[in-house]
């Protein structure tokens, strides 16, 4: 047995194992910024549509947001290790990104992006599904609350007036994207500051 194996030392070793295994399994990528970016993108597209009624508003904004997401994600996460959990969560959001991009591009250019209620319900449904699936995999209550916000938006936009639909969409974007993204960024920063170095 090593010489320094006092009960305290052994308990410390057990702590190291538990802490490091948890660290390794943690969803290591930092994704708070993408929620904020996409929240802002939705607001920009909505403002652009309200201002000019251009069919380019959604496709152009979404295309720019996709490019920024790919470039930043690649530079931030290229050095992170692969985990099964990370790949599972990543797959959900990559599939969501492809679905939403195609939806906006196809509906935008075909000129069939006309019924606001259907449009908001479809977007809210897709985002509710992705947030809900991530939350269930990660067992993360805060993200499940985001999914619930999007699910409520489906109901509000389906049964409410134009005004209710707009307000519910704006509120869902704020709560589910911007507030949740900011919460994620703050949590990541706190976690980084909490770490202590491990010496030989």
């Amino acid at each position, binding site marked *: 047995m090593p010489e320094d194996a006092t009960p305290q030392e052994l308990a410390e*070793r057990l702590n190291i*194992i538990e802490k*490091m*295994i948890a*660290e*390794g399994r943690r969803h290591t990528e930092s994704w708070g910024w993408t929620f904020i970016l996409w929240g802002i993108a939705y607001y920009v597209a909505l403002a652009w549509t309200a201002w000019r009624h251009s069919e380019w508003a959604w496709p152009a904004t979404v295309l720019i947001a996709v490019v920024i997401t790919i470039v930043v994600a690649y530079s931030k996460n290229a050095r992170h*290790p692969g985990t099964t959990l990370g790949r599972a969560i990543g797959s959900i959001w990559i599939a969501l990104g492809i679905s939403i991009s195609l939806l906006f591009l196809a509906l935008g250019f075909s000129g069939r992006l006309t019924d606001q209620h259907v449009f908001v319900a479809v977007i809210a449904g897709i985002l509710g599904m992705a947030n809900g699936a991530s939350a269930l995999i990660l067992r993360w209550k805060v993200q499940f609350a985001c999914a619930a916000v999007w699910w409520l938006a489906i109901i509000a936009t389906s049964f409410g007036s134009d005004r209710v639909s707009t307000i519910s969409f704006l509120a869902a974007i704020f709560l589910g994207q911007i507030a949740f993204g900011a919460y994620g960024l703050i949590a990541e920063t706190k976690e980084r500051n909490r*770490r202590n170095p491990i010496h*030989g």
Partner: protein
Amino acid sequence: MADLPDLNPIVHGKLRLALLSLLAGVEEAEFTWLRAKTQATDGNLGAQLLKLEEAGYVAVKKKFVLRKPQSTYRITEAGRQALTEYVRALKQLLGPAVDTRERKS
């Protein structure tokens, strides 16, 4: 206390134990990620990873990305086995203390 198990001295080092535990949870990891997670210095981290590599507990893959060297580490089957046995021995040595922790968590 002749029946108490021995702790593997290679695995017992704090940083080496942290590295094996980290690598047990991922498929593979780069040097920079391991450094960020352990907050260790480059020199110390490199030395401890070399010891684990020499013991056959981790495997390293070196390549150049954009002309910069990049080392990727993964735990080997022997490393996983050594970590499992170390945890088993540790639990046996700590005995009642571990049982209390597990009941509390």
